[in-house]
Structures are given as structure tokens and as C-alpha cells.
């Protein structure tokens, strides 16, 4: 037998191992975090055994409960506001027609994505100082709404762009007025995009740290702020617990988003 060189088209030598290393790098820190959240020892890095004690302690902690409640409230209100504004804008900007100001409007909505978060954060702080809005839940909700709009906007617009125009035309042809067409045709078709946008907004809001850090006042501490404070004061096992919970929330929501947009691409093709 002669020694055969085997040539497989499109193979990059070593890419498989490289990719494996990539995913290990990506996930190892999270795995470490989750594992150590079950450590019974008070000293975070000193593994002595499995325990759920710190979960119990963390969940019973008044401050954490308050921070969690704040995070949830802020995320819910900001999501509802952002999704409403984004849906209205997407209904105009997601159509194939072109008009003056379309690109400008799209650019304006994407602005929060382009500006570095720290700049947005301090600018918003200055604004509240000038206008005289007390830093607190309201200021955080406003800042989050602005930041969440592009994240809500993108999936809704994508959904609209992929929508068949003739469906709305058919509806009008069948004697539905504008409102009925929107209510019975456009909105139901748009729903997966709106849900997807809501998922993203919610994650972005609940995870946000830098902007919240600058515009939160006394009594509006969110979970990320609380975590940051704990890390600053010295790491306790409770940080690991709360961090693990935050990870879990994000993963649940992003999975929901993923499934929603995937189903969407199945039904439109």
C-alpha cells in the first residue's frame, strides 16, 4: 500500500482543537463560578464540600431581596417602554419604502449601541443634574429605556422586513380597515419579533451595570450594583451565589430568544 495523503476540501488543520479550546476559554470561568457557588466554606476559594447554605443565606438577605426587586421592577418597566417605542418605530422603518429621514431615524435609534457605555452613563448623569431629576428608580428606568430601545428594535424590524407585504394587502382587500388589518394581521405576525425584542431588552436591563452605577441613587441599588459592592468589600460566597443566579437568568432568557427567532425563521421560509 502506498502512503496516501488524504485531502479533504475546506479543512483547516487544527481548527477542531482550536474551536474546542475556544469554547473551554469561553465557558470555564462560568463553570468555575457556578461550582464554587456550592462551596460550603466561608473562604470562597477554599473548597471543603458541597452545600446549598449560601443559597439559603443569600435568598434570605434583605438587601439582596431589595436589589432583586429593584432589578426586576426596572427591567419590566424599561422593557415595556422600550418595546412600545421600538414597535412603533419599526412599523415605520421596517417597510421596504424609502423616505427622507429614514436612515437618520434608524441611525438615531442605533446611537446607544455606538456610544461607549461609560460616555452614555456620565452624560446621562450630567443631564439629570441639569434638569434636576433626583437619582433613583425613575432615573434608572429612563436610562435603561433609552439603552434598551435598539435591542428591542432590531428583532422587530427584522421580523417586519421578512414579512410578506401581500398579507396586509389581502387583509385590506377583504374589507379590513387599517386598524383591523393591524390588529388581526400585522400584530399577530409581528408577535414573535416583539417577544424576541422584549427578551433582549429584559436581559440588557437586568444585566446593565455601568449606566446604573452612574445614575442610581440611594434605594435604587440593583443586583449588579450589589454584586459590585460585594466584590469591592471582599469576596464572599454570596457573590458566587448571586452571580450564578444572574447567569441562569440570562441563559434562560437568551435561550427563549433563540428559540423564538429560530421558530420564526422556520415559519417564514
Amino acid at each position: 500500500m502506498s502512503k496516501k495523503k488524504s485531502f479533504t476540501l475546506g479543512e483547516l488543520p487544527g481548527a477542531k482543537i482550536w474551536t474546542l479550546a475556544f469554547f473551554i476559554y469561553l465557558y470555564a470561568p462560568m463553570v468555575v463560578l457556578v461550582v464554587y457557588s456550592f462551596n460550603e466554606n466561608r473562604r470562597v476559594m477554599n473548597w471543603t464540600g458541597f452545600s446549598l447554605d449560601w443559597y439559603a443565606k443569600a435568598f434570605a438577605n434583605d438587601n439582596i431581596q431589595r436589589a432583586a426587586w429593584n432589578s426586576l421592577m426596572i427591567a419590566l418597566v424599561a422593557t415595556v417602554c422600550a418595546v412600545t417605542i421600538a414597535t412603533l418605530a419599526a412599523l415605520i422603518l421596517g417597510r421596504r419604502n424609502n423616505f427622507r429621514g429614514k436612515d437618520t431615524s434608524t441611525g438615531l435609534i442605533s446611537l446607544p449601541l455606538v456610544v461607549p457605555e461609560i460616555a452614555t452613563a456620565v452624560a446621562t448623569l450630567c443631564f439629570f443634574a441639569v434638569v434636576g431629576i433626583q437619582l433613583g428608580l425613575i432615573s434608572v428606568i429612563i436610562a435603561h429605556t433609552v439603552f434598551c430601545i435598539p435591542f428591542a428594535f432590531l428583532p422587530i424590524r427584522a421580523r417586519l422586513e421578512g414579512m410578506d407585504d401581500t398579507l396586509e394587502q389581502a387583509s385590506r382587500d377583504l374589507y379590513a380597515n387599517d386598524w383591523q388589518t393591524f390588529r388581526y394581521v400585522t400584530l399577530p405576525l409581528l408577535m414573535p419579533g416583539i417577544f424576541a425584542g422584549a427578551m433582549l431588552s429584559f436581559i440588557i436591563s437586568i444585566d446593565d451595570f455601568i449606566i446604573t452605577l452612574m445614575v442610581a441613587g440611594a434605594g435604587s441599588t440593583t443586583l449588579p450594583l450589589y454584586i459590585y459592592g460585594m466584590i469591592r468589600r471582599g469576596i464572599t460566597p454570596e457573590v458566587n451565589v448571586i452571580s450564578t443566579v444572574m447567569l441562569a437568568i440570562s441563559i434562560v432568557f437568551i435561550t427563549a430568544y433563540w428559540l423564538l427567532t429560530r421558530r420564526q425563521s422556520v415559519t417564514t421560509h
Partner: protein
Amino acid sequence: MSATAIAANNLVKIFGSGPNAVTALDNVSLTISDNEFFTLLGPSGCGKTTLLRLIAGFEQPTEGDIEIFGSAVAGLPPYERPVNTVFQHYALFPHMNIAENVGFGLKMLGREQREIDEAVTTSLSLVKMEEFATRTPAQLSGGQQQRIALARALAPRPKVLLLDEPLSALDLKLRQAMRTELKTLQRDTGITFVFVTHDQEEALTMSDRIAVMSAGLIQQIGTARDIYERPDNRFVADFIGDSNFISATIDVIDSDVAHCVIGNGLTIPTQLVGDHRVGDTVTLAIRPEKIGLSGGGDWIIKESIYLGTDTSYRIASGTQEMTVREQNARTGTARFNVGDAVSLDVAAQTTTMLRD
């Protein structure tokens, strides 16, 4: 007999594995001579493109081997084989201009820039595209891109040129013009062409030899005339041109001519194939244009379709049906009307007894 350019021996190609496995080539063997215009003809999915990709080196055979000018190429990557490919959708590099596209092969071979420039000029003039050297592929029409793809594959002077349905994306007029051009190009350059197509007209007009493929098998190899006039089996007779398939019984065997009787008693003389004996039932393939019609007889015209140069008749006698095609000659009108009675005249060398 000239040298063998390509020899394929017992090629098997199976894609996938387990229950999803698909056999694309099922024990295919063929030889292609140097200097030959060889066509692989067949419907989509017949394995013709797979065979071409095995020769090019994009895929490796599951079993069997390929020799190119006497040397085995098993395991060799495409860039170590003396063959070049004209791709179906041209595959011109969009980020390079025409000259860079055409010179790419020689550049990869490490030739000097001067030599590359010369080869680019020669190749471009071969396809009459000299003045397009600095354009980008996006600026060319489909037909022009086609020529550049051809020039690019010819520039390194391969021993064998593989063409994967290169004309399929062109419109009809352009396609017809390109046929003649390709044939001339092949004759002038002396390069062996292996041409893949599903278009029988293309195959018939250009090829020295044709391999008709179906279901991963070679059905028949021969010249255009062989394949049209003497199809080996039902698939070939049906795929190339139209045929009437008639079941008949051998009545008399006279050396190598069998006189076959069909349902209504008509006797058709045909070349004997295989070891049939008197009384055997065989299938005859009769081309519609090989049947002569004359007035009066036991066949009735059931339908008459005007086709411009020809008229196609559907005729019947009892349960037997056939299609007959007749030129409209000079008068431009059909000789018979629906309901007319006609008789048939089938010459001895015009029908084929099928092997299957």
C-alpha cells in the same frame, strides 16, 4: 489509437453513511483518450458531476482509482493534478480583476510575472476578451464571465480540461454560439475536454464520444451516431431523442436480422441483439421520424400536432399506439388529417432491439 488521458477503474462513490448513504457512482469504469472531446451526459443526480469532481480531486472515491496520463492520482489534492475546471457558475474571484483571475493558476505555480502576463494575454485572446483585462468580474455579462472562466482554466495549459455544465447559465442563442466555439477551441488547443451536461443537443453536437449516465451507472459509451441510432437500452433510447417502445415477438431469424411481429400483425425487421431465439418477446425502439406513412391501411390517425418543420401524428391500430413524425416538406401543411387510415413502412436498419 492515441494515448489514454484518463482511466477510471471501478469507481464507487458513496456520500454519507448508514441509512442516509447515497451511492452517487456505482462501479464506473471508462477511459478517455488524449485529444478527445468526451461528454458525460445524463439527468441531474446521475453521478456525472461526481465523476468530474473525482477526476478534479475535490472528492475522493470510496473505492476504485483514477489515472491521469498513466499516473494514479489517488489522494492527490486538486492543486497537484494536471487538470483544470470550468465551473458551472464560473466561480470567478470577485476581489480580483480579469487578468488576476486568469493569471491565478500560474501565479500559484510560482511562475515569473512576465510569463504570467504572456499567458494571460494568450488566453484572453483565445476567448476574444483581450480588452477586458482590467475589469472586475461583476462588470461582465454572463457570457463574458463564461469566456473568462474558460480562459482562466486554459491559462496553465492543463492536460485535461473539465467543464461542469459551463453553458447552462447562458441564454439559448449564446449557448448555441458557444458550442461551436468550444469545439473549435478543443480542436485548436489539442487539450482533452471532459464535458458534463444534461443537454443532449449539446452532447450530440460537440462530442467525439459520449457516456450516457443514469443512477450512478454508465448506460452506454459511444459516438453521437452510435448512441442515437443504436441505443443499448431503454434509458438511452428514451433520454436521447424520442422513441416508440414496442413489444414484439421474434417470428423468423435470418442470419443477424430478426423479423419481429407486433400486436396487429405488422412485421418489423431489426438487427438481432443478444442470443434471442424465435418466439422470444423483445422490446423494439423505433424513432418517430424513421417511420414512413402512406394512405390507406389499418392504422388510424388519432391526433395531429403541428410543430413548424414537422408534424407529429399519434396513430393507433387496435391497442397498439405509436408516434410518427413527418417533415412538412414544401407545402407546409400536414399530409394527413385526424381519422385518416394509413399504413406504415419501417426500414430494416432503423429500429433497435433493446438489451433490457
